[in-house]
């Protein structure tokens, strides 16, 4: 009997964990997007007023960010400094390839950014960054809308699914 109850608790805890994990990912995606928007702002200012070369720009971005995003920017900067790749887009793509843990929306935005990287003059580059920033803002707005309900539904769904499974097994 005790074993049954223990199994049920484990199932509920497991499913609940998945739900809470999904909610956490949701928050992480939102935070990373917010961080990326801030970095894009920094890119624009630095390019406009200092015309900083890309390797230095990404090094600064790595220092100004945290977690996966900091790793990614440091990798891009390293790739650019090594001067092995034919162009900046290739460097970014190769660094992104190594950063699969980044949230989908952030990966999508960064892939977009890589397409314009180092391709145009200063105005063109700024336009490219601002376009990606606008798209990030839209995605962030999407995430922020109904944020509380969505997070609560993930958590509740996890717990309920766990409870349902436990009832079925019992």
């Amino acid at each position, binding site marked *: 009997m005790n074993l049954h109850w223990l199994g049920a608790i484990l199932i509920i805890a497991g499913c609940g964990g998945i739900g809470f994990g999904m909610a956490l990912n949701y928050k992480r995606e939102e935070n990373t997007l917010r961080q990326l928007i801030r970095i894009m702002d920094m890119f624009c200012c630095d390019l406009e007023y200092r015309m900083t*070369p890309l390797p230095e720009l990404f090094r600064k971005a790595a220092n100004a960010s945290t977690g996966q995003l900091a790793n990614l920017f440091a990798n891009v900067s390293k790739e650019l400094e090594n001067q092995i790749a034919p162009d900046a887009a290739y460097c970014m793509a190769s660094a992104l390839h190594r950063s699969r843990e980044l949230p989908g929306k952030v990966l999508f935005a960064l892939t977009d950014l890589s397409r314009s990287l180092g391709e145009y003059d200063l105005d063109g580059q700024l336009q490219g960054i601002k376009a990606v920033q606008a798209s990030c803002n839209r995605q962030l707005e999407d995430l922020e809308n109904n944020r509380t309900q969505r997070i609560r539904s993930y958590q509740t769904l996890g717990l309920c699914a766990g409870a349902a499974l436990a009832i079925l097994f019992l």
Partner: protein
Amino acid sequence: MKCAWKELLAILPQSIRQDVDNLGREMLQEIRLRKSQPVQLICHKQTHWLKTVITAADLNYTVNAASRYSPWAATTISQGYLTAQGGHRIGIGGEAVIRDGQITGIKYLTSLCIRVARDFPGIAASVGQVSDTMLILGPPGSGKTTFLRDLIRQIADKTCVSVIDERGELYPQAADFMPGRQMDVLSLCDKPSGIDMALRTLGPSCIAMDEITSESDCNALIRAGWCGVQLLATAHAADVQDLYSRPVYRPLVQTRLFRSAIVLQKDKSWKLERMKL
């Protein structure tokens, strides 16, 4: 010879780095990369042809690497060149992009001419004391910039020199070219603005600059003349007679701003000539 060799190799396509390193480390002056042609290395007294044939991708790679993948850091491409880290100047051949009647860039690259920035401390020692304004003349490749670099250093050991390094070739940050003791360098700044800034803020006894090429450069020099500041510059001309024949330089001679010139020969020797029309 001192040279930012690592920086030079880093901008070359990987397929030729080893050969360039083996053949050119001592006396390399110029590397010519031409699309669908083998690489040409021009050293002090001989020319080497490598077997590697250059592709369009190789040319693009070199320009990308030299500009550190940042086209905005290479705005001089519209003037047909860009300066790589270490002061190596890359002349660009290709199809000009024209917007509103102005050249804004170069696309479909067909050739690159990489001039290696080198430093030979002591080559200008034989000039001795320079107290007058002085022009250094010579045809392309005669070593005007290299000579000027050493002459500036010598003068800067005794008096305060402001260097207007418009192309970032004289004392590039990545190269460990020994600076003079009393030297202030204003890099990547056009000559007219640089001269004004130096006069107003750096308190120089001498202002030095490389390659006077335009009327605005000459006018800026004339404006700076007779301010109690010694001027030192280089210009493209085989000798003093050549200089007189070029209308753009005429005001410099007519105003007697420059009264003597050091004329460099292709064999790296030099002679001092007086100038008068």
